């Protein structure tokens, strides 16, 4: 079981308030991703849950029990660090067995669980190596192995993939998702990469300056961002945010339209502009079009290949059903 509740949890370092009081409930078995730009307090929040930092006020409950002043060793949570944080002087086997050794499990049970974890993570042939002799991906798997052997109430991941190269990152992303499906254990995952958040999460918590901007499923956040920050942060490429007269025409100080909800035409449309740089991904093409009366170039997604070139004049039309409107304070207008 791993239901985690934060009740008015706040954190200050000296006079600086990093996290103003916030409430959050993470259900048992949920995959929750904390996402936000660097310095938004997402890692601090994770470390508060882990017990590596003390809360300044508020209460943390794990499965209904007050864990606020319980030391990390006794919270029954496992953590995977960005730097892997393996014990360099121990073999892979000893690294994975360490939490079991601390829990004073008997040797037979320890080796049974280590073998099982190694099997799941394809580490069997590396069990007698030291971390220094492994690649980045293998090290990360050892770190995950160390976390899964003790069957924790929840897993905490602190940007676990950011030290890996892009190809490996995609692979590990799938492995972690796969692991979650199989273990059905609560996972809290911190990342600054919204693609990781979108692809892995059951629930995303978007943070900015310690505040929760929005909590919801990836598609809820994508379809109905509560404010301009979430609108701009979730989705790649970013949502086009347009102000000024053009927005006023649609009845809001700011409007937003995702690149896939803009149609391109040679003859007619709402906005007139010039094609700038284009990005060809094969399956999709993104055009950056500079339009009259719009400050930033508008990004447009077109399926497959289209015969448009740098400097071509085009017409763009936003799909009115998918237009997002925001008020002066940046909040979504329903």
């Amino acid at each position, binding site marked *: 079981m791993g239901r985690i509740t934060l009740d008015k949890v706040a954190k200050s370092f000296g006079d600086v308030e990093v996290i103003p009081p916030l409430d959050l409930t993470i259900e048992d078995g949920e995959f929750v991703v904390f996402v936000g730009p660097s310095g938004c307090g997402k890692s601090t929040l994770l470390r508060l849950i882990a017990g590596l930092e003390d809360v300044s006020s508020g209460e943390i409950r794990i499965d209904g029990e007050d864990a606020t002043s319980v*030391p990390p*060793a006794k919270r029954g*949570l496992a953590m995977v660090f*960005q730097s892997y*944080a*393996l*014990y*360099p002087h121990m073999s892979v086997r000893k690294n994975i067995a360490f939490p079991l050794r601390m829990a004073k499990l008997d040797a037979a049970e320890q080796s049974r669980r280590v073998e099982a974890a190694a099997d799941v993570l394809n580490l069997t042939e590396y069990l007698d190596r030291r971390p220094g002799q492994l690649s980045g991906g293998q090290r990360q798997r050892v770190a995950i192995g160390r976390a899964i052997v*003790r069957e924790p109430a929840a897993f905490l991941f602190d940007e676990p993939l950011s030290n890996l190269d892009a190809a490996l990152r995609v692979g590990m992303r799938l492995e972690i998702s796969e692991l979650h499906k199989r273990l059905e254990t609560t996972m809290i995952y911190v990342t600054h990469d919204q693609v990781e958040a979108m692809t892995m999460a059951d629930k995303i918590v978007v943070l900015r300056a310690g505040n929760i901007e929005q909590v919801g499923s990836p598609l809820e956040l994508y379809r109905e961002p509560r404010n301009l920050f979430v609108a701009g942060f979730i989705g790649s490429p970013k949502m086009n945010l347009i102000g000024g007269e053009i927005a006023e025409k649609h009845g809001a100080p700011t409007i937003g339209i995702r690149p896939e909800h803009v149609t391109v035409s040679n003859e007619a449309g709402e906005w007139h502009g010039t094609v700038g740089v284009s990005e060809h991904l094969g399956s999709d093409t993104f055009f950056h079009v500079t339009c009259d009366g719009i400050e930033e170039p508008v990004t447009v997604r077109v399926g497959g290949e289209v015969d448009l070139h740098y400097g071509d004049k085009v017409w763009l039309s936003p799909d009115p059903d998918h237009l997002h409107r925001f008020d002066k304070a940046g909040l979504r207008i329903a």
Partner: protein
Amino acid sequence: MARAVSTRRKIAMTTLAWIVGLVIFFPIFWTILTSFKTEAQAINNPPLFWGFDFTLENYAVVQERSDYMRYLWNSVIIAGGSTILGVLVAVPAAWSMAFVPSRRTKDILLWMLSTKMLPAVGVLYPISLIFVEFNLLDTRGGLILVLMLINLPIIVWMLYTYFREIPVDILEAARMDGAGLREEILYVLTPMAIPGIASTVLLNVILAWNEAFWTLNLTAATAAPLTAFIASYSSPEGLFYAKLSAASTMAIAPILILGWFSQKQLVRGLTFGAVK
């Protein structure tokens, strides 16, 4: 930094290093040489580098007059004991300074080091009184305690510098894995800091071995280490240069051999963790 060094420069530096090395080594060499001379030849003018009558008589006399093994044993116990005790106290101290520093940590460290700038004789009187009061005079236990306290700032400083190189993530991982403070220090921090602890131990064994002020002032016969053994031969009466040299050679031999076999750790220790 990769930089081509010209051959001429290399030769010059090597020569200079050898000269400096030889100058530093010369007194030791001379002591050893003198220990094999007769007393008359030992004070011969001009000094004799060769052509003297090689004799082991001085060693025989020294061994006959005083029990070398007893002094040696005292030295081993005092140097070893004070170092082990010091490390036991300093590991937790350095842990807290390196991993949970407060705003005053740097000040405390500097203050600790500043006690090393105090002339030892300045506290001779109070320490002697304490020793008399607690019946510690001429006991190994008393000396272990005093030498431990004298060297503690250096042990803490050295361990602190080594511990700072250890990523805190790894200690946090141990905490998440269920390790309490004791397990964290015992199973994770200490094994990772073994090279640093080894150099610290070595340097402190040497410092304690060579410590002469306190050992001479606070011991008489029972707990006297090798420093007192040498001192007993520096008598102003009579010709004892050769015997003094023999005693010195016997006193420095163990530490010289220890130093020889642990040069690498020692160099690292002496650079105070500055070289990574």
